[in-house]
């Protein structure tokens, strides 16, 4: 499972980082999403899915490959 971020939509709420810091982080300049692990490590799928679903800007997507 992979995660994809749309930086144009991201407004830096950082909900993804709060919910799944193993996959999502934020930068020090704008506070926007940084994907630290574009392939979700095994066992973290549910956490990553929740992080994606909690993005208030719908800036994150999951993909199977």
């Amino acid at each position, binding site marked *: 499972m992979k995660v994809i971020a749309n930086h144009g939509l991201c407004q830096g*709420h950082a909900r993804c980082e709060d*919910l799944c810091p193993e996959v999502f982080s934020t930068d*020090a*300049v704008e*506070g926007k999403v940084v994907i630290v692990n574009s392939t979700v490590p095994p066992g973290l799928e549910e956490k990553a899915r929740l992080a994606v679903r909690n993005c*208030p800007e719908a800036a994150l997507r999951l993909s199977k490959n």
Partner: protein
Amino acid sequence: MTLMFQPSPPDHVPLELIVDFDLFHVPEGVTDPAEILHDLVRRGVPKIFYTPRNGGHWMFLDYADIVEGYRDYSIFSTYQTPIPPIEPFPVVVPQGIDPPEHKVFRSLLAPMFTPIAVRGMVEEMQRRANTLIDGFADDRECDFITQFAERFPTSMFLYLFGLPEERLEEFLALSNVFFRSTDPDERAKNIVEIYAVMESLFRKKEHNPGNDIASAIVNARDANGNRHDWTDILNCGFLLFVAGLDTVTNTFALIWRYLATSPEARTYFRDRLEDPDAFLNGIEELIRINAVANNYRRITRDCEYRGIKFRKNDRLVLSGMIANRDPQVFKEPNSIDLNREVNLHVTFGVGPHRCIGSHLAKREIMVSMQEWLKRIPEFDLAPDQPPSSAFNGPTMGFKGLRLRW
């Protein structure tokens, strides 16, 4: 109660969309300021309606429309939005400027409010929260709002601006007049005073910069390598003063009143003192249910939105308190579920003006709750509560909260 003259509704608003609603009036005896908003939804008034009160303004009740109101700045501008209308009105920078121009100051401030920056402030927050708690812990009671909820964000403001803690009383006095006075003369004088304080602070930081927000603002350079316009600098300082104090104070008041009356919630958070992720998730829910800010927008041009005619300069109120209880988005929206899995609350707004201090505010709430619960694990409402004093408007809250333990 608003006593000002109410103009007739403009002729572009159809009668069936007019609802008599006064955002600034919470009826006597009502202890929850949000009740006047929830009441609109319960009454089944139109999801987009116009009230002639307070100079006249639109209101959205659906989450989807409120989100659109935040995102589409081509129609819903943050420039010159006061309700009731006051002109001219200071342009608070960068909140009161539409994209892309708002980017100049937004980008300047952004690095100081990122999650990374805010994580670096945790120890200072812990220390300041504990200093305040030291002041009343042994009394086994306190006036929560004046002894903690007002002081903590103001104290953090001093820290962020590189000001000494000794100036706390002075800043508290300034913000109390700003947020609570209804006397027009006192208010006018107060704004002049706030700007004078900002002016002297920025002048000082221009010559003796420190590692603080005021220094960063005044010593930043624009695209041409010049210092930013002095008026913009002062307006930016003013924005940080007005945006970061009262919202946090009122959120604290609502949250602590809830904690005082809910043993389950106290237990929930106490059990998670060592598990910050779970603790934070519970806080997201408290933030959803206690969205104290109503944000204003101004219509930029004559247009139609969902078949309704808006006229240029019409005002609009976007209420997070309403959006966050929309059953189309939230499962059982009216119950507090500290384990809620999907929580798309818009308490900090969405889109280009998403509250820049959201991470700071959230962390202030989290650290305060953690430090409080470590030292005062059990508390409830004191029997001698002051008479109910709920208020609404751009921010909602209430005035007295006596706690005991």
